């Protein structure tokens, strides 16, 4: 599905992503973990085209997407949500989703038809329902609760009908109860929407609870990859990461 080979990105002298080679199989639910500054967000930025790598390649469904721009990468079916919920605050939830769907359907440059065009409204409600946002459809998104804003961000990515969904810390800034509610929704999405899902997470209970496989990044390099059991037993990981008793507190 997604094949990353020797990917490197430097900022000044520091390699935020250093010779990373990873594969993500179709329909997997993969967690990316690693201490702060491990280059997790940079990695997402490279895949989604927000940053251009210095070297290496990204192949998605057999096509080299390394040099494509953001919009082209979105068209190939890669959607992403952000660590800080990213949406359109002057619009309602429904308008946010309609806008995303219109963009996905290539209507963003359409100067003839009124917005939203036929079918967009209905599709927006479907997407809202996937994440349980249907009751807030007419709420101004700026007024949503923090958790719902994170859901809206994910819903915007889902509106693109992606085959690969990248979630950057879906539970960031949430309390323990809220976290599990969020992660259950993420897990259900993955099961029902035929997605390949990659998420960055700091909460080890969540990571080991739901991920089918785990990649550990440290100082821009791949430290380990494998199933939760393999990662748990990996001495390098224990040394570098899990060994730190207060790793979770650094969030």
């Amino acid at each position, binding site marked *: 599905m997604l094949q990353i080979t020797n990917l490197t990105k430097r900022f000044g002298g520091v390699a935020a992503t250093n010779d990373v080679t990873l594969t993500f199989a179709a329909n997997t639910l993969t967690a990316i973990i690693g201490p702060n500054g491990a280059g997790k967000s940079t990695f997402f930025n490279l895949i989604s085209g*927000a940053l251009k790598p210095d070297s290496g390649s990204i192949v998605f469904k057999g096509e080299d997407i390394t040099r494509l721009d953001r919009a082209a990468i979105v068209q190939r079916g890669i959607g992403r949500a952000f660590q800080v919920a*990213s949406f359109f*605050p002057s*619009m309602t939830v429904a308008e946010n989703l309609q806008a995303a769907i219109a*963009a996905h359907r290539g209507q*963003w440059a359409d100067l003839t038809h*009124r*917005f939203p065009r036929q079918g967009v409204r209905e599709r927006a409600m479907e997407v809202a329902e996937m994440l349980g946002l249907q009751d807030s459809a007419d709420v101004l998104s700026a007024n949503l609760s923090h958790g719902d804003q994170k859901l809206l961000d994910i819903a915007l*990515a889902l509106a*693109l009908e992606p085959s690969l969904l990248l979630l950057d810390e879906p539970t960031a800034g949430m309390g323990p109860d809220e976290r599990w509610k969020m992660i259950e929704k993420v897990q259900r999405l993955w099961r029902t929407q035929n997605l390949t899902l990659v998420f960055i997470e700091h909460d080890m209970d969540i990571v080991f609870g739901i991920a089918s496989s785990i990649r550990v990044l440290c100082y821009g390099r791949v430290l380990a990859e494998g199933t939760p059991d393999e990662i748990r037993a990996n001495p390098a990981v224990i040394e570098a990461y899990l060994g730190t008793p207060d790793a979770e507190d650094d969030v």
Partner: protein
Amino acid sequence: MGRIFRDIAIGILAIAVLAAVPHLIPGKAFQDFVIRCSSMALFATSLNLLVGYTGLSSFGHGLFFGLGTYSFALLMQRTGISLPMAFIATLLINAVTAVAVGAICIRLRLIYFAFVTLAMQMLMHSIIISWVGLTGGDQGLQGGIPRRVVAGIDLGNQYNLYIFAAVVLVIGLLIMRHIVNTSFGTSLRMIRDNEARASFLGIVVWRVKLTVFVLSAVFASVGGIVMSLFVSGAYPELINWPISGDAIFAIVMGGVGSFLGPTVGTMILLLLNDVVTRQTEYYGLALGIIILAFALGLRRGLLDFITERLGGRPAGGIS
């Protein structure tokens, strides 16, 4: 669909009312006012496509208003083409100029975009001032606009020009209204709200920005054409920086979050202009105090203030 017809109906009604008014109120002051209003409101609303809808604060939009007056006046004076042809050619000249200017400007963000647009306008102003042979330099293009009779209607006649200005304004506003209501219009708001998110939803941001830049330049030049017909020529003041200042003033006063905000702001500006200059020689002092009262009292445009008070949601845009 229904809302388009409603908007068109309101437009036709507005033209009908305006057509009747001069028969009730004699004198040219009102007609003058409406013609100037039409020109400035088209210009201010076109600027609001950038400022209010896309979040691009241009300080140099007067470039296209002024270029509209000069290209139209020059085409009418120097070539033999008919008024409608000159009208269309002026729009084309502005569109082409806007592609070039926009391609340079839209790469820049926020205050840098504002400054480079202002520099572009002032550069055009300098060119016009120094190219005396073509533009008449600081004296402007005098000698009037010839061939004003279109389809048997003489636009040299004050009442005819007045109706023409009203019709152009209504059509211009309807088209811009339609633009902001399309999916493209939604793309503008997405870019204003969150440019990065818009790009991650597959919107090619620079293309949307350049398109709206060109569209707004074209509508600004329509305002310029009306002004050129009104003043029978083109003058450097019409492309100098205060003309951009007036438009910014109008949209901020009227409300960037409401479609008709800039039109309301234009009326406020012109009314203030006419009333205050009649009452006192200290126009700046009076206008300055009024601006401060508005800006610090309402903290938003008049129409935005009213819509919020009437229980609507925040109109968005400026904040």
